[in-house]
């Protein structure tokens, strides 16, 4: 089975350069203030190359490819 990857943004590192949205419009658009909005879900095979490019070209290393099912929860 091939492991599915999804794009995740570190909101604190991200400073809104917008390269990722330029490189991968298929999955990433910019909000009203220039910060990336990622289409949720695993990246289809034909977009892996560009996704990796978007990750590598981020000037602040704020976007990454992670295993699709990633748990997040916060306590009080």
């Amino acid at each position, binding site marked *: 089975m091939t492991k599915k990857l999804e794009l995740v943004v570190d909101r604190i590192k991200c400073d809104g350069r917008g390269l990722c949205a330029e490189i991968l419009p298929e999955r990433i658009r910019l909000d*009203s203030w220039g910060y990336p909005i990622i289409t949720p879900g695993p990246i289809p095979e034909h977009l892996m190359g560009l996704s990796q490019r978007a990750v590598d070209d981020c000037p602040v290393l704020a976007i990454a490819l992670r295993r699709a099912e*990633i748990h997040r929860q916060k306590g009080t």
Partner: protein
Amino acid sequence: MSAPRLLDGPSPSMGPERLAAHSRRLGPLPKGGHGLIDLLGHTGLTGRGGAGFPVGLKWKAVAAASRGAAVVIVNGAEGEPHSKKDRHLMTSRPHLILDGAMLAAASVRAKQVVISVGEDHHAALRSMTEAIYERSDHERRLMRIVTAPARYVAGDSSATVHLVDAGIATPTTTPPPPHERGVGGAATLVQNVETLAHVALIARTGTATETVLVTVAGAVRAPGVFEVKLGTPLGDAVQMAGGPSEAARAVMLGGYFGRWVEVADAWSLPIDPHGLRERGLSLGCGVIGILPARQCPVCEVAGIMRYLASESSAQCGPCFFGLRALADACTRIAERGTDPGDLQRLQRWSGEVQGRGACKHPDGAVMFLQSAMKTFGDDFAHHPAHLRRSA
């Protein structure tokens, strides 16, 4: 005879209960451990800091990742402007909180216990400091106090960890959550002070506690902190505070991350985390704010949105710029009157901000605004131009 209450014993107005009196009243502190974790799971106790996360689950997770080096953070930052219940408990029942902290430390095998108190809560700070000096040497060695800046986000669990770790009370990126990687990379249990006080009672009785601390604020005759039985109608809690001081318009339930309810529907609501969740509401940090009828809800909401925007730690763009834009649009409506464009922008921007911060600050603010626009739909739709501000 009903289950013990947090504020049983001497009147809170008499100041902190000393260790001797505390021990005489409640008896020795039982041992913590897996048994207690299971017990907490069965009682269904949920966090009283705001998020209402199941306590048993969180302790289990921390214990699993502990390796005997976990950290317990007692969260008494209480950055919520209207909430007073945490500092009230710290100034009246410090040892109940420390009992809970020690039980937590034993149950998750923690090496240190850090008590975080809002730096403005002077009485609470004094009370907790004195209480620590009354504990045994062994316990004192584990414990230390840090003061949290009086900022809204300082109460966030990752911000508390960051404060203990680096001395900077700003939220950090999660995952990993603190209960996996917290202080110094160790599994860290961040628990609200009231939650831990409940644990101290549950461990002694073996049964669930049946009360919750609420802060009744706003247009009531005697605002303050009250311990009410779970399931108490909201109206009764307001009566404890002397009842509305004037005609009331709506209730803000759960503080600035909470929801608005018209008084007509509010009085009968049961004060109980589970009961409220079924109604799409949340007790949050236990704030019950009464909005008087003479006050314009739109102006009130605009003021609160400005506050929440100013409390963004400016780390995540969507939160900082989004909340600022939302607050400005609300303020425009409040001051210059309703503009359909602004109403649309409020909806669009809410969608763009939701879920796009490292912490839950933007989400909480947006949910609060959405609830306000639902509850005060007509007021937002037909707001006249006037410059009355209420912050």
